[in-house]
């Protein structure tokens, strides 16, 4: 059952991401990206990361994607901007393929060597993912959490400055 779920989700994620980068119309790309986000959210559920899955749907699908769609429809760009120069096409695919093969080579020996943590399946069952997640976030990762809040403030100021009319 778990295997079947994984293969369906993985297939959906891969197919929709291929469609995403090959559609000429940015609106179609955005909608295919939505499907990718949902499949990845499903994979997060498989990986005992329910909270992340919820955030994935809320933030990526709910906020970021809507922002993209909003801008695409606001600008309604005329220029399609699809591949015209074969050289770049070949170069891009070759570069990605090299990276892909590199990663596959890595996978042969991929395993986790680090010492096992305390957050086992049983711990999740007992306390739930969200509670443990909150504990980890506000104990070991407090500083980056605060830094990210500064970053969001900067991004907010910047987006307003850049996009507003004077």
């Amino acid at each position: 059952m778990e295997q079947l779920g994984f293969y369906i989700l993985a297939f959906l994620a891969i197919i929709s991401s291929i469609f995403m980068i090959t559609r000429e119309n940015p609106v179609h790309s955005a909608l295919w990206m939505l499907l990718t986000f949902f499949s990845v959210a499903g994979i997060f559920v498989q990986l005992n990361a329910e909270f992340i899955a919820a955030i994935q749907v809320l933030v990526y699908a709910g906020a970021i994607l809507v922002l993209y769609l909003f801008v695409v429809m606001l600008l309604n760009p005329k220029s399609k901007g699809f591949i015209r120069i074969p050289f770049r096409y070949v170069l891009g695919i070759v570069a990605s393929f090299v990276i892909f093969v590199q990663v596959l080579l890595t996978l042969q020996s991929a395993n986790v060597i680090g010492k096992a943590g305390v957050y086992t399946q049983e711990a999740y069952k007992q306390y739930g993912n969200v509670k443990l997640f909150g504990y980890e976030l506000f104990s070991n990762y407090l500083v980056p959490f605060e830094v990210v809040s500064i970053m969001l403030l900067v991004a907010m100021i910047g987006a307003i400055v850049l996009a507003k009319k004077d």
Partner: protein
Amino acid sequence: MTLQHYLALSAIIFSIGMTGVLVRRNLIVMFMSVELMLNAVNINLAAFSKYLNALGGQVFIVFIMAVAAAEAAVGLALIIALFKNRPTVNADELNTMNG
């Protein structure tokens, strides 16, 4: 399911995203492809997190998502600013500074 399954999936999505950034010339689609690459990283981190019995990877995903949201806001604001001066979203037309 083994760790390798998840890592392979993430590698495929990462490569697709990278191809998108390198091949597409539409700025908005290029940004979307970057989001795809970040999603691949997230799968990686979640998978490692599970097999390490640790939560560090999952916490990291939240930071990546926050950064992705902030980058989307700033990047799309930059596109709007560009579009006001020159109605194009084609990266090949960004060539006022040759040399």
